[in-house]
């Protein structure tokens, strides 16, 4: 539990400690929220009540795992090309600690889709949703920069270069994830 709190409140220390169990648990929860929680919520509370498709659940789970590996490979390759000597395994163990906002986003996206009519044209609910979404976005961006600066140890033009290049990779992956049916990209 302490390790999870550390990842939540002291991400830089969590990256350095590199506890892969913590990282991978958060990633696993995020993937399951996308692949299992969202379709179940849609089935029971959605307007069209779609049938639960176990095959699709497995496909989204596998794509989620693949997505996490791909983003770690991208971090490793891009950071390496900018002079970082950090091993791939370290990226694989640490990046998952940034998935708290991603997991929260998965829950909010699922609820928003199902209860779309509650939020639409409602000032209070809309403002609350906006507060949560933008908060999650800023939180993830902060973790991204903390990861590159405090964990990978990039400085100056290397930091800017990796930030821009990885930003492009993340946008591309988010687009592909949406195309493949992952509502919240596992990145």
């Amino acid at each position, binding site marked *: 539990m302490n390790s999870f709190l550390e990842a*939540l*409140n*002291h*991400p*830089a*220390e969590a990256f350095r400690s590199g506890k892969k169990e913590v990282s991978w648990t958060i990633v696993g929860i995020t993937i399951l929220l996308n692949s299992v929680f969202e379709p179940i919520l849609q089935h029971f509370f959605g307007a069209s009540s779609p049938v639960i498709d176990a095959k699709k659940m497995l496909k989204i789970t596998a794509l989620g795992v693949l997505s996490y590996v791909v983003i770690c490979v991208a971090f490793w390759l891009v950071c390496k090309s900018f002079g970082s000597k950090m091993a791939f395994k370290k990226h694989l163990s640490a990046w998952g600690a940034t998935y*708290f*906002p991603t997991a929260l986003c998965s829950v*909010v*996206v699922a609820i*928003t*889709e199902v209860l*779309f009519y509650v*939020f*639409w*044209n*409602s*000032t209070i*609910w*809309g*403002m*609350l*949703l*906006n*507060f*949560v*979404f*933008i*908060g*999650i*976005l*800023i*939180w993830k961006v*902060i*973790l991204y920069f*903390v990861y590159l600066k*405090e964990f990978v140890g990039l400085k100056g033009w290397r930091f800017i270069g990796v930030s821009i290049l990885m930003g492009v990779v993340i946008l591309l992956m988010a687009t592909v994830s949406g195309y493949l049916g992952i509502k919240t990209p596992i990145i």
Partner: protein
Amino acid sequence: MNEKDSLLKKAFDTLENNSLPTESQKEIMLNRIMLEGENENSSCIEKLKRIVIVYPWRLAFVVSAVQAAAFTLIFGTQYTNLFLGVFGG
């Protein structure tokens, strides 16, 4: 008498050892002290940077609350529906 003394000494030693912090606790304490030390000798920008690094989610939601309140007051549901269309549509 000597045996009794030795037993008492052992008991006190055990008590003393149990009250000592473990290696991981020592490391956490050292990290916290170093962080405090860095904060004391740093400029305003450095302090702000440290707050962002240590409390990322708190800062993110404070900024978000400010923008949500301000832009909703200015643009109303036009603004909130825009985000709903992007993230929840």
